[in-house]
C-alpha cells in the first residue's frame, strides 16, 4: 500500500477518534499528530506526559516499574528489595533480560526477587520493623552483596512508613550503602517519573560517595556508558566499540553495572548517554556538579553508529579520532555483507513502532539501513523533548502517537497495513492473530543484542525471519482458502 498523504493521515486520525465521547475525543486528539519536519518544537503538534484517559487501554507502567525495573534493577551486585506486597516484584522479575556476569545468589542478584511480602498486619501496624529484619536476613544469607536498595511499592507511601530512617540506621550498622527509593507506583502518570525518582536517589545516595577520594587512577580517555541496560547483551556490543576506539569504559549504567562503577562515574571525562529519557537527569546533575559533559549517541545500525563514533571521538584528541575511523573501517566488510544479504529481502517494507524510552526514534536509522521505512512511531511515556528529537528523524506526514490506546493502535494498523510492527508483549499476539509480522521490541523478542555492529547483524536477521516467515501466507484455514478465492480474487501477500 502506498504511503498516506498528510490529508489522508489527518482524516485517519479524525476517523479513529470518532468513536470516543466528546471529552475523550478532545483529550486524545492532542496526543495524535502527523509529522511535519518544519516544526521545531513538538509541543506545537503533540501533547505528551499526561495522565492516561480512564477507561481506555494503555500499556504504560508505574513509577515502581521505572525505578526497580529499569534504573536500579540491573545493578547486579546490589540487592533490590521490592518493599511491599509480593506481586510487584514477582511479576516483574527478570522479564527485561538485563544480562550480567556473575554467580546469581552469591555475588550478583539480578534475576532474583527480594520482597518484604506485606501482609495485612504490616499495613495496619507499619512495616519498618519488618524492613529492618529483612535487611539483617539479607546480610546473613547474602554477605557478598555490595548494598541494598529499598524500592517502595504503593502501600509504603500510603501508610507513611519511614524507610529513610530504617535505611540510614541499617547502613550505619552494616557499613554498606542502603538506598531508600520513594518510587511508589501511584507517583506520576507513567514509569517516567520513576526514572526521575531513581535518578534523584542515585544523586542523593550514591554519586557523592567518593568525593574527595582520588585513589582511583584516571586516564584522559575515561567515559561512562549511561542508559544502556544490557538487554540481551546490548551494553557489551556497545562497549567493545568504545574500547576499540581507545576509550576506557569506567562504568555501565546500569546493565551489567555495579555500585562501585556508579560511585566512580564522577571521575570520568565524558558521559555517553543512550537512553536519554531515563538517565538524562543524572547526566545533567553530573554536568552541573562535576563539569562532565554529556552527549547522546545512537548505536542502532551502521549509519548511526558511524555518526555517533565520530561525534564521540570529536571530544578527544587526534589518536581517538583516527581510531574511530579505523573501527568504522574494520567493521565495514561485516555490515556491508549484512546489508547485501538482507536489504533485497526487506527493501521497501513498512514498519510501525510503539515502544518506550529511546527506541521509537533510535531504531529508525537501523531500519533505513535495511531499506525499510518507519511509517508510524510513538512513545508510551515520552516527554516533549523526546518528540523534539523524533520529528527530525521521521519522514513528513508519518503518524506520531503518544500513549496510544489499544483501540487506536489497532485501527491505525488496519488502515496503514504495515509489513512489521515493533511493540511490546501486550500487543504481540493481537497483531500476530491479525496476520501482521511482529517483533517485541522491549526485550528484543528474546533475541539480541541489537546495539553495535554485532547487534546489527542480529537485528537484520531477526527482522528478515519475522517478515519473510512463511506462516504469514497461511493465515486462512486451508478449507477456507478456495472459498475465499472464489468469493473475491485475493491480492497475493508480499
Amino acid at each position, binding site marked *: 500500500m502506498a504511503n498516506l498523504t498528510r490529508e489522508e493521515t489527518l482524516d485517519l486520525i479524525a476517523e479513529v477518534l470518532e468513536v470516543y465521547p466528546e471529552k475523550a475525543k478532545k483529550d486524545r486528539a492532542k496526543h495524535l499528530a502527523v509529522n511535519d519536519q518544519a516544526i521545531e518544537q513538538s509541543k506545537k503538534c503533540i501533547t505528551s506526559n499526561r495522565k492516561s484517559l480512564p477507561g481506555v487501554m494503555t500499556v504504560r507502567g508505574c513509577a515502581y516499574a521505572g525505578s526497580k525495573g529499569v534504573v536500579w534493577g540491573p545493578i547486579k551486585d546490589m540487592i533490590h528489595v521490592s518493599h511491599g506486597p509480593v506481586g510487584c516484584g514477582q511479576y516483574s522479575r527478570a522479564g527485561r533480560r538485563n544480562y550480567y556476569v556473575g554467580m546469581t545468589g552469591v555475588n550478583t542478584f539480578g534475576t532474583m526477587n527480594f520482597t518484604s511480602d506485606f501482609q495485612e498486619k504490616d499495613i495496619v501496624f507499619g512495616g519498618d520493623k519488618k524492613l529492618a529484619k529483612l535487611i539483617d536476613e539479607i546480610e546473613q544469607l547474602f554477605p557478598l552483596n555490595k548494598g541494598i536498595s529499598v524500592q517502595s511499592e504503593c502501600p509504603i507511601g500510603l501508610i507513611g512508613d519511614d524507610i529513610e530512617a530504617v535505611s540510614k540506621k541499617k547502613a550505619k550498622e552494616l557499613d554498606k550503602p542502603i538506598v531508600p527509593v520513594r518510587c511508589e507506583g501511584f507517583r506520576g502518570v507513567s514509569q517516567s517519573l520513576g526514572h526521575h525518582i531513581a535518578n534523584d536517589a542515585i544523586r542523593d545516595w550514591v554519586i557523592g560517595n567518593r568525593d574527595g577520594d582520588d585513589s582511583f587512577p584516571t586516564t584522559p580517555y575515561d567515559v561512562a556508558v549511561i542508559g544502556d541496560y544490557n538487554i540481551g547483551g546490548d551494553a557489551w556490543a556497545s562497549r567493545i566499540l568504545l574500547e576499540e576506539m581507545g576509550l576506557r569504559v569506567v562504568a555501565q549504567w546500569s546493565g551489567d553495572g555495579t555500585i562501585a562503577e556508579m560511585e566512580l562515574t564522577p571521575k570520568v571525562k565524558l558521559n555517553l548517554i543512550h537512553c536519554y529519557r531515563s538517565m538524562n537527569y543524572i547526566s545533567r546533575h553530573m554536568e552541573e556538579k562535576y563539569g562532565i559533559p554529556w552527549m547522546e549517541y545512537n548505536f542502532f545500525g551502521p549509519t548511526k553508529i558511524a555518526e555517533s563514533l565520530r561525534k564521540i571521538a570529536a571530544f578527544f584528541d587526534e589518536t581517538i579520532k583516527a581510531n574511530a575511523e579505523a573501527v568504522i573501517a574494520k567493521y565495514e566488510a561485516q555490515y556491508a555483507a549484512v546489508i547485501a544479504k538482507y536489504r533485497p529481502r526487506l527493501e521497501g517494507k513498512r514498519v510501525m513502532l510503539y515502544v518506550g524510552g529511546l527506541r521509537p526514534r533510535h531504531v529508525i536509522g537501523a531500519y533505513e539501513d535495511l531499506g525499510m521505512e518507519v511509517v508510524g512511531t510513538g512513545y508510551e511515556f515520552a516527554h516533549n523533548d523526546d518528540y*523534539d528529537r523524533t520529528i527530525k528523524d521521521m519522514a513528513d506526514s508519518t503518524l506520531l502517537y503518544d500513549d496510544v490506546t489499544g483501540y487506536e493502535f489497532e485501527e491505525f494498523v488496519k488502515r496503514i497495513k504495515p509489513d512489521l510492527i515493533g511493540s511490546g508483549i501486550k500487543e504481540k499476539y493481537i497483531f500476530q492473530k491479525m496476520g501482521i509480522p511482529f517483533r517485541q521490541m522491549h526485550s528484543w523478542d528474546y533475541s539480541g543484542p541489537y546495539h553495535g555492529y554485532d547487534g546489527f547483524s542480529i537485528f537484520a536477521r531477526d527482522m528478515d525471519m519475522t517478515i519473510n516467515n512463511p506462516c504469514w501466507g497461511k493465515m486462512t484455514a486451508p478449507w477456507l482458502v478456495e472459498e475465499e478465492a472464489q468469493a473475491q480474487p485475493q491480492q497475493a501477500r508480499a
Partner: protein
Amino acid sequence: MPSVMIRKSDSGALLFYVAKKDMEETIATVETDTPQTWGGEVELTDGSRWYVDPISPPPVFPTTLRFKRAD
C-alpha cells in the same frame, strides 16, 4: 519560582531547563550579559519572559538558579 538549570547547548546557545516542568527552551535574549554581570530579564524562544536578579560576577554554566516569571 522554579529552579532552572542553565546550560550551554552544542551550538553555544544557553538552554533553560526546568526539570519539574520538563521544559527545555533556548534563551533568546538576556537583559544584562556583560563580563561583570549576568541576569535580569530573560526572554526565551517561545516568547515567555523570566527574571533573575543580576549576578556578579557571571555564573559558570551549567548552574541552577531560581527564576521568577516576569509576566
